[in-house]
């Protein structure tokens, strides 16, 4: 292979290797801080979606729960908080949903998203107090159909998981 054909490949590869090394080095000291921030955010979100929840304990994910459920917490008063990862307009929308022992939604919150319309911040209050019987009546937000649908699918999965964990007595 001639030098003129080899050089571009070598230079681009060398730049990529340097960049990867630099990013790996920075990730080494930012990753623990980011993880800590996210855990703090989750704890704050747990209390926000279930203010009277007392203390929360992580529960192992059992077989049969919807695939979108990433974490389950049980509160000291018998309620459950589900963390789901669903797709809205973009993927990776993380929503926490609190359901008390009587099957009422105590609160929901989007803790991470790449959505651009901000609908994920308007939707939470619409679901408070809803049950499995009437949560589907929450209307979508105009111009944010995919975000609204994604949010609703997270609530559907949370109710499905609640039903499994409580033996279907919601």
């Amino acid at each position, binding site marked *: 292979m001639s030098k003129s054909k080899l*050089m*571009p490949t070598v*230079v681009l590869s060398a*730049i990529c290797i340097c960049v990867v090394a*630099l*990013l790996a080095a920075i990730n080494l000291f930012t990753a623990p801080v980011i993880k800590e921030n996210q855990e703090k955010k989750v704890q704050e979100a747990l209390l926000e979606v279930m203010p009277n929840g007392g203390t929360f304990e992580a529960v192992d994910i059992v077989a049969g729960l919807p695939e979108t459920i990433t974490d389950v917490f049980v509160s000291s008063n018998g309620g459950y908080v589900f963390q789901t990862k669903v797709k809205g307009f973009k993927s990776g929308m993380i929503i926490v949903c609190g359901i008390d022992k009587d099957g009422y939604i105590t609160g929901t919150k989007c803790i991470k998203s790449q*959505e*651009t319309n901000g609908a994920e911040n308007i939707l939470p209050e619409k679901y408070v107090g809803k049950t499995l019987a009437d949560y589907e009546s929450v209307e979508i937000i105009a111009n944010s159909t995919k975000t609204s649908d994604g949010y609703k699918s997270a609530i559907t999965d949370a109710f499905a998981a609640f039903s499994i964990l409580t033996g279907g007595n919601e």
Partner: protein
Amino acid sequence: MMSEKKKLSILLKGIIKENPVLILVLGTCPTLATTSSVISAFSMGLVATLVLVCSNIVISALRKIIPDTVRIPCYIVIIASFVTIMQMLLEAYLPSIYDMLGVYLALIVVNCIILGRAEMYARKNTVVDSALDGLGMGIGFLLALLVMATIREVFGAGSFAGFTIPYLESFKIPILTQAPGGYLVFGLVIAGMNVLTAKRGGVKRKSFACDGCAMKESCSGECSENKEKEDKADV
């Protein structure tokens, strides 16, 4: 003395004469998206400036090593790496700013200003000049965002940087904080800039050749040479 004057002119040209947003009309997406509040506009401007300065320095330093055929992929890799570094640092140490900028933080990678300065300036000039050019363009971008955000937040939300302005709160125009208001304010600010530059004998807008180009001074005229070659090839 002459050299100092030249360096100062490299730094200052990005602020008014070659302002990337208001004269070159580049980086319109983040300009419209992040100027609904002063804090998000300031954060975006600052992050873009840092990326611009760093990428200009690295691209200028590597300009003799990077072959022409792969220069654009190389520039993109370098710019993307600085954006990713900024993302990681913001997510770790300033999470509220990270959440506020959202998807627009990652979109800095495809910001025309950054790639444009790499292609137009950094690959042809020294490291110091490129750093000054990046800083000047970054400050110009930041100032344009701040002007837009101030108008939109003050008159659209009746507040400044989150602090409510008592009298204006009763007379706010909410559409200014939304997309149509963004376009309206953008047009008005560009019009204002045109008036300002016209008074100073600014850019000859009616010419479509090199004389009408705001980047005439930093461009070596390669674009017109290339066009001539293409025209000849077509014939």
